[in-house]
């Protein structure tokens, strides 16, 4: 699962949706891999405004990546071939969580990630 995807995920439990604690989910025992993905600067530039930047900073910090700037880079900073684009591409598109867990900060439920696929099916008492 890409880190980009994690930026769009919250807890699957309905009662958690209203809590700010349910987003972002927190990686635990995460095993990362880096895929080789063709860069697509246009896609990246357009996706940027759709990201929750502060959540992305949290995720990057929790996974031990270098600190991201406090605010999202401006379109001008995203020059093709530049370092910012390359860094974001690696972080969002190429970095995968292949094994581990995603933990809800609201209810504490842990969602398993196996072979790169996160599983959000809930036990019946949480549905």
């Amino acid at each position, binding site marked *: 699962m890409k880190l980009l995807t994690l930026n769009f995920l919250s807890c699957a439990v309905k009662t958690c949706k209203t809590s700010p604690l349910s987003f972002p989910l927190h990686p635990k025992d995460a095993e990362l891999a880096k895929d080789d*993905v063709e860069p697509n600067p246009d896609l990246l*530039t357009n996706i940027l405004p759709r990201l929750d930047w502060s959540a992305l900073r949290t995720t990057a910090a929790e996974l031990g990546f270098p600190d991201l700037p406090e605010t999202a880079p401006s379109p001008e900073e995203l020059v093709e071939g530049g370092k910012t684009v390359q860094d974001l591409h690696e972080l969002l598109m190429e970095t995968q969580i292949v094994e581990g867990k995603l933990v809800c900060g609201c209810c504490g439920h842990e969602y398993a990630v196996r072979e790169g696929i996160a599983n959000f099916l*809930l036990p019946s008492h949480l549905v």
Partner: protein
Amino acid sequence: MTSLPSSSAAPAVAKLTAAAAADPAAEAEADAYERTHVHGVYQAIASHFSATRHKPWPGVASFLQAQHPASIGLDVGCGNGKYLGVSPSVFMLGSDRSSALVALARSRTAHPDEPATPQGAIKTRGEAATTGAAAPATATPTADTNANAPAQGGRSSTSDVLVADGLSLPFRNEGVDFAICVAVIHHLSTRARRQDAIRQLLRCVKTREAASGHVLVYVWALEQGNSRRGWEEGGEQDLLVPWVLKSQTRTPKTKAPRGPKTSKDTPSGGEPPSPTASADAAGAGGVGQPDPVFKRFYHLYRQGELEEDRDNWWVVAANDAPISRREK
């Protein structure tokens, strides 16, 4: 193969609906029913099902291709992921209840060059797409879908998949630009659950930007005058529809002779050549064990029903159901 008769699920649905009305906790019963008659079936038939599902429906493909470049979309009930690469300029998040199908979708998007070789074109019938700014009236054939898929060697840069239940989606509120949900909601056994599924989709899409917030929902229609199954107006809506799991180790049996003049020349390509072929496949035909038959639950939508179930502004392309064309 589709010629085995469907059987009624009406008594079961009546029981589930009554139970839920009496006690909201009885939701678990409907969930269990779907586990048996939907999720369990798809887990069991995943690879066979996937092998028959390559071509995107043109109405869905044109909806995807009409989305703003670099928008982010959901495909809820993505199955084997056949829509995830249709438009390489958007980023798609696919989810499905079946981990077996999601695993197939992941390997498929990782290796977009793998063959997608259905026989003939899949055609949609009675296109009823009303998609606002999206989806030009002329549906675009998408035979070259795989050619469009990105990422040589590496994983697709434009999709990701996960396992989730459509009634408990893990996506944050109003995070994405659009969503599609194709041939999924009719598998839910009560009306309350079908409405809830639509609410869930709407919750996930943005509402502020005029260019986004579209949700495309396809369901099977009741009114199919020329269906071999005889589904038509006024007929029963809650059914168990058989799926014959063709053995993977045998070559598929068909009544049509092998040769130059088989399905390629017939207009409906992937369709079994005759109804008797599937009776044959269902076990009368000689080699080894009979092919197992799984019964999937369907709620066939009558005309107008999907519109009643919606909230206010979303977009529906409903009641398109080329069943005899799609099922093989």
